């Protein structure tokens, strides 16, 4: 099984002893070795992002120089994206969207480096991210509209309600499926393609696929946050 061809990762130093010493415990909960590596790589990305943010925040100045320049460009680009897509009333959602964007982008991109693994190549991570987006849209809708939020599901005419209500519920639930599967399929597909091409000819043939991997990482991040923002603004606006 090609998923068992797992390339060596830095977190193997932690997950190998942890898995083999507590094997009965992991097997009782159905946790595989790859899940340990996946979660540890998620933590690695989080630690790297937090340390980078803390290093910049220590010395913030009015006239930026050095790494503060780079992060100001990143933050202002994300702010432009959020305000253009959601309008001015979307500013409270900027921390959520920007955190999702930076996390997903770093998780996707870090798999290109040799001793790291993209955490998003596992359905568990992408399902968690999709659930965050889903719960946020419904929480925001219920907080803004109260009980009248149900009118979003009912459609334009009252006699179509028995037909449209299940369809709307299913289409809302399928948003979780589509968000998680899109991100998982793209990143896992790229990883599998590179693994299989590496088995053919190690250092030359995977290079075009790795260029494509950088491109796909950015595009999938952009699509995820665009969809999250569109769902949130759709649940904030008035019903049909």
């Amino acid at each position: 099984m090609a998923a068992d061809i797992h390339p060596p990762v830095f977190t193997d130093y932690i997950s190998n002893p942890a898995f083999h010493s507590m094997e009965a415990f992991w097997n009782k909960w159905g946790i595989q070795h790859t899940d340990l590596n996946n979660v540890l790589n998620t933590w690695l990305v989080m630690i790297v992002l937090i340390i980078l943010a803390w290093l910049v925040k220590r010395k913030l100045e009015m006239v930026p120089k050095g790494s503060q320049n780079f992060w100001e460009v990143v933050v202002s680009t994300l702010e432009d994206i959020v305000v253009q897509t959601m309008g001015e009333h979307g500013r409270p959602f900027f921390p959520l969207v920007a955190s999702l964007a930076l996390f997903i982008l770093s998780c996707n991109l870090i798999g290109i480096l040799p001793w790291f693994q993209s955490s998003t190549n596992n359905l568990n991570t992408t399902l968690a991210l999709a659930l965050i987006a889903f719960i946020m849209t419904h929480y925001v809708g219920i907080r803004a509209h109260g009980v009248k939020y149900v009118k979003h599901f009912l459609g334009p005419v009252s006699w179509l309600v028995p037909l449209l209500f299940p369809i709307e519920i299913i289409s809302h639930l399928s948003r979780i499926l589509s968000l998680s599967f899109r991100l998982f399929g793209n990143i896992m597909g790229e990883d599998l393609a590179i693994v299989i091409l590496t088995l053919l000819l190690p250092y030359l043939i995977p290079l075009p696929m790795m260029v494509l991997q950088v491109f796909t990482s950015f595009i999938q991040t952009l699509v995820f946050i665009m969809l999250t923002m569109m769902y949130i603004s759709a649940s904030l606006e008035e019903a049909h």
Partner: protein
Amino acid sequence: MRRAFLAGLIILGITLFAGLAFAAESSEGMLGVIQYTVLGAGLAIGLGAIGSGVGMGHAIGGTVEGMSRNPEVGGRLLTTMIIGLAMIESLTIYALVIALILLFGNPYIK
């Protein structure tokens, strides 16, 4: 055109039955589950790629024409096109997931 389509269907039917006859002796009592699984995985990703290719070509063609008519909204058209392509691509990704499940985690092969 119609005769070519019918001839293609007949050839496909003959291939499927011939493959079943040649392959039945390999796994007793399961009548070529592995063979049909592999065929199914290949067809899944192949047909998924056809649909995605046609749809994406149509989308990009419309975007390029729109950009040529009105270059100053080119940025917004590009963003909309990228999001639309990701939507279309996700349908092919569903087909890819089915193909991967069939090849690597088939529940019918013990």
